[in-house]
């Protein structure tokens, strides 16, 4: 399996107000056509913020997910999410939550036919800081795969 740091075109790097997660600039991912590969999407959670991990501690919490869109010639496999860090916060001195902070890498398994494939994925997250939470957000992620 090929492991490729993928990133696409620069996007969302400058977080707008209340954009708590940015997708770091990415170059096109070069993969071998017809062979399984991994595409990495690098996220940055704004300083002082946290988002729930993919496997939150409680079922009422909204997990971080990335969902690639279906695209001709691209076969998406499972997404590998990093483990969350167990942390407590000012509002939960005794209870710990599984969260992401800082830089986070999501690994998307993909097999692509030969050619250039411009596609998208949707990142869904729900962020909080030490005193408040913010509504869940869907952030579009542009992906460019070049398979030869």
């Amino acid at each position, binding site marked *: 399996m090929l492991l490729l740091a993928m990133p696409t075109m620069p996007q969302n790097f400058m977080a707008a107000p209340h954009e708590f997660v940015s997708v770091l600039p990415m170059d096109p991912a070069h993969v071998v056509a017809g062979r399984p590969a991994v595409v990495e999407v690098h996220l940055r959670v704004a300083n002082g913020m946290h988002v729930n991990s993919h496997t939150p501690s409680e079922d009422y919490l909204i997990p971080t997910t990335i969902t690639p869109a279906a695209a001709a010639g691209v076969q998406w496999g499972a997404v590998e999410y990093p483990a969350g860090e167990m942390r407590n916060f000012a509002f939960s001195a005794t209870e710990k939550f599984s969260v992401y902070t800082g830089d986070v890498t999501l690994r998307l398994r993909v097999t692509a036919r030969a050619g250039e494939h411009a596609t998208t994925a949707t990142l869904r997250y729900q962020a909080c800081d030490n*005193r408040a*939470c913010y509504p869940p957000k869907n952030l579009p992620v542009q992906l460019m795969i070049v398979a030869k």
Partner: protein
Amino acid sequence: MKRNILVAGIVIVALAVIGWAGVENYHQRQVAQQKQQELESQRVELVPVGPRSTDATTADAAKGDASMGPEMVNKAAPEFNLATPDGGKLSLTALRKQHKALMVNFWATWCVPCKVEMPWLVELEKQYAPQGLEIVGVSEDDPPDAADKVKKYTAKVGAGYPMVLDDGSAVKSFDVQDFPTSFYISADGKVVAQSVGLVGRDEIEANMRKALGGK
């Protein structure tokens, strides 16, 4: 004769020195005054960051906090007419007709800080309901299962006060971006206090008293 000329000369020199000193002193005072005026014109008033909870007297100080959004304090509370988890409808007008004062609490089941304060609200609602206060929770949970989530959680914590499910209109008209956010509405329909984010129980209680007309 020579002595008189010498004395006169000394006197003239002395007078000249005194005169020069006076002019120099006047000049230095003018320069100092000008510098003071320049400093005054450049002076920046440093004010403390506004508190999370604002009332009519502190609203201006809180405007420096970008996360607060436009202040609702001293303004008429926006109307809403939203679905309840049981399928009914509930409006702010209807609540105001039945109660002297209201606390409108924006929350969601995915919001842990909101859940920290909810048991306090349950207690305070029991304490102040006899004086005419009612709490209404405005849930920001998304459909289609918002009603089920709200009913399940409020039953768990024993929150018996009214709940409505926001369709996006209330959060917009109240300009809420942070959760929890609460508005305290007095008998005349005006917002008398607003709190953004998790604040202490005492602060919530103080705001409730204010809405009831206390200080």
